[in-house]
């Protein structure tokens, strides 16, 4: 019986799970799909050993992992499948915070702030002198990497004295109980907890404060805190009919399903483009072995991937 | 059996009675271990309980300090009256702890607490709320002397009790029982785990102790009973067969059964 093995990021998991579920139903059980969560790093490690067909990744593949894949002779096709919009949230009882700029976020989060920036009014004198309590994903997550890169300017560069958790529900709990709390995590978690939390509008490059929403992400106005997420398909596996069918199914129905699990889909054109890249077997990554902030998916898909 | 007591009692009517079983009986759950025992315990005398294994000697002895209260399902019948205050030791309203403070016990196997020699003896006193250091020291020394152990241990009072030899441990337990200044001391085969020399020293000690305190002792060893006791009670399957002055019981028992046992025809 045909089997498609997928492993990797917990951020991408809900979408892949939804696709896997529907795909298996559509195939009437003729194809089996398994999805694991071992993190983007763990997923890519297995992928580059040839143990899985597809890796879920919440960030692009990195230099070291590229080298591993190369060494094992694994070629891969990089396919963006949706957006993850990082949402900055605050406690609903917070009355003074109307919007926030990237610079203000940087003041709060940069390494130099550790132990020093502990009150809201140290960031912006207009704000209250309440204690500032920060919440965010653990330092080993792709979300953390992206946020630090986008806000501080350098991946993994952050203060250490914030409450970290792998489980975003835990962060939801934290901010919803802490009047002076501020945190960030994926949009889906905010969406499901709208009654407990308030999203903070983030001022984009054009100077407009944008509240995160599916539309705002899709039209590109919510930036820089939205990022694409990916699946990596092994070129060798792509020759297998079941994997090929699964990926095609993913790119055709992924948009709808992503929306259903509260992620932001790509535009139809982007999915088509991705499908095209897949059928042409464009192997390699559009990134140079490191992540980038603020790239458009359409541009990514146009790039000539390197291995 | 009731008249076992009566027949002899006349012979020593001039002695003071310290305690007395009246129609005493005992049940382990459903099993009746003792039936209708009537027996005096004379003041400042040694009374020995003898009889074949399982006849209820230990059961009777342990009723005197209400040891059976520690286990569920046990039941007393009748009375054990203690003098001079005429208290029924078995009465509901009498606290077993009070009984045990008046009646000490020494067991078959020496059972020193895992504490120092000093603390072993001081235990009975601490339980009585004594805290004054020098008073404690006095009393411990006094009791150890009373148990003929002082000379052997005076330099090592802080040693563990368990480090003593078997005979010394048993004397330590006697000192512990003495420290409480009890009115009666119960001994349950105190020498059966000891070698002959240690046994001799304990026997000697018991004969000395009866100057000050009433003693009730269970023994398997007929010779021992003959050597140290003033009165002997012969029991058989939960009943008291014969009670009397030791010399008389051994030389001219009134019951055939007693005679058979003493001459070793069974048991």
């Amino acid at each position, binding site marked *: 019986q045909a089997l498609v093995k997928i492993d990797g*990021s*917990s951020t991408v998991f809900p979408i892949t799970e939804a696709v896997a579920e529907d795909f298996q139903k559509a195939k009437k059980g003729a194809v089996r799909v398994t999805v694991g*969560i*071992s*993190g*983007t*790093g*763990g997923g890519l*490690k297995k992928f580059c050993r040839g143990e899985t067909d597809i890796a879920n990744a*919440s*960030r692009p593949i990195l230099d*070291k992992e590229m080298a*591993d894949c190369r060494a094992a002779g694994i070629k891969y096709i990089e396919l963006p499948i949706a957006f993850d919009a990082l949402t900055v949230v605050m406690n609903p009882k917070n009355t003074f915070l109307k919007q926030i700029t990237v610079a203000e976020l940087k003041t709060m989060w940069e*390494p130099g702030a550790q132990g020093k920036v502990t009150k809201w009014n140290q960031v912006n004198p207009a704000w209250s002198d309440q204690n500032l*309590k920060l919440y965010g994903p*653990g330092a*080993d*997550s*792709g979300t953390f*990497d992206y946020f630090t890169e986008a806000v501080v300017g*350098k991946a*993994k*560069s*952050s203060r*250490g*004295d*914030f*409450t*970290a*958790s*792998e*489980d975003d529900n*835990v962060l939801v*709990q*934290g901010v919803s*109980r802490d009047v002076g709390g501020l945190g960030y995590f994926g949009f889906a978690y905010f969406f499901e907890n709208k009654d407990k939390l308030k999203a903070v509008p983030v001022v984009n490059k054009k100077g407009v404060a944008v509240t995160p929403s599916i539309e705002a992400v899709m039209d590109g106005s919510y930036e820089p805190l939205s990022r694409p997420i990916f699946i990596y398909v092994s070129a060798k596996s792509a020759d297998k009919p079941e994997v090929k069918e699964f990926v095609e199914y993913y790119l055709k129905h992924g948009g709808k399903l992503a929306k259903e699990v509260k992620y932001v889909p790509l535009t139809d054109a982007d999915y088509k483009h991705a499908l095209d890249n897949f059928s042409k077997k464009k192997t390699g990554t559009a990134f140079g072995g490191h992540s980038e902030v603020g790239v458009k998916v359409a541009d990514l898909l146009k790039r000539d991937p390197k291995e | 059996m009731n008249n076992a007591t009566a027949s002899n009692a006349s012979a020593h009517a001039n002695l003071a009675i310290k305690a007395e079983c009246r129609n005493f009986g005992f049940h382990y759950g459903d099993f009746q271990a003792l039936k209708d025992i009537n027996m005096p315990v004379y003041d400042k005398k040694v009374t020995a309980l003898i009889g074949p294994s399982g006849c209820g000697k230990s059961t009777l002895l342990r009723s005197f300090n209400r*040891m059976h209260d*520690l286990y*569920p399902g046990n039941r007393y019948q009748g009375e054990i009256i203690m003098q001079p205050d005429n208290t029924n030791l078995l009465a509901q309203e009498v606290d077993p*702890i*009070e009984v*045990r*403070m008046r009646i*000490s*016990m020494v*067991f078959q*196997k020496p*059972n020193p*607490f*895992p*504490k120092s020699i000093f603390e072993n003896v001081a*235990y*009975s006193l*601490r*339980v009585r709320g004594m805290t004054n250091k020098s008073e404690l020291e006095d009393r411990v020394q006094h009791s150890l002397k009373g148990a003929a152990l002082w000379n052997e241990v005076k330099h090592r009072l802080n040693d563990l009790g*368990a480090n003593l030899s078997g005979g010394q441990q048993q004397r330590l*337990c006697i000192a*512990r*029982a003495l420290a*409480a200044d009890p009115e009666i001391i119960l001994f349950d085969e105190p020498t059966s785990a000891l070698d002959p020399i240690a046994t001799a020293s304990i026997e000697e000690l018991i004969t000395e102790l009866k100057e000050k305190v009433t003693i009730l002792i269970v023994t398997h060893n007929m010779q021992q009973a003959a050597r140290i006791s003033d009165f002997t009670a012969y029991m058989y399957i939960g009943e008291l067969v014969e009670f009397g002055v030791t010399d008389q019981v051994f030389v001219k028992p009134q019951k055939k059964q007693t005679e058979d046992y003493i001459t070793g025809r069974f048991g």
Partner: protein
Amino acid sequence: MFTTAAIVYILVKESWIFFEAVPIRRFLFDTQWTPLFDDAHYGIMVLLSGTLTSSAVALLVAIPLGTIIAIYLSEFAPFKVREIAKPFLELLGGVPTIVYGYFALVFLTPLLQKIYPELPGFNLLSAGLIMGVMIIPYVASLSEDAMRAVPMALREGSYAMGATRLQTALRVVMPAATSGIASAYILGISRAVGETMILAVAAGMQPNLTFNPAESGATITSYIVQVALGDLPHGSIGYQTIFAAGLSLLLLTLTFNLLGHWLRKRFREVY
């Protein structure tokens, strides 16, 4: 035996790579633990402080309560109560720890915040308290076994002197069962130090050099799961840290166990 060898081998091998990159001095004496950050620090003391603080809280709950329960069950409780209570307590030890973790987070912490509003949503205190409850059965059950193993003759000796139950329990039974009780404590400590999920969920994963239970903190174990689940590339120095942390943890529990063994030898029951 083989298992230990394998564990030690794997931990040492992987830690070796780590210690080649990070000098042991920095591992032991740095006051920050940010191995995954751009500006990496590898001060194990930070995780150790979290581990020790949460364990201390847990033990402050588990040891007194566990001991009291043990004494109660072995010396006070009627037979029926003991036969029912003991298996029930053992159930407490069987509840999956992840369940405890969420219980600490969504039930206990808000409760504590009502009493002490300053308390952050994640703290070593509530995680430690729940962990304490989880450990109670281990401490109670083993101590009770040790106390019940004390021969009845010793207890009778004490009662015969006119002692009450409490006097007998505290002055005779406990001292006689010292070594068994000590090993129960040691096992409790090992459990506390090695507990993972409760802390991962409820303590806040914030590497924080503090001994204040009212703050959030990270422990060695919670760090290991965090990384094991994360997006980190394997083989990187950051990933290697989990083996170094695991090794420290193993050394820590080993120390306790050796201590326990020594204590047992030292206070061998002398009935």
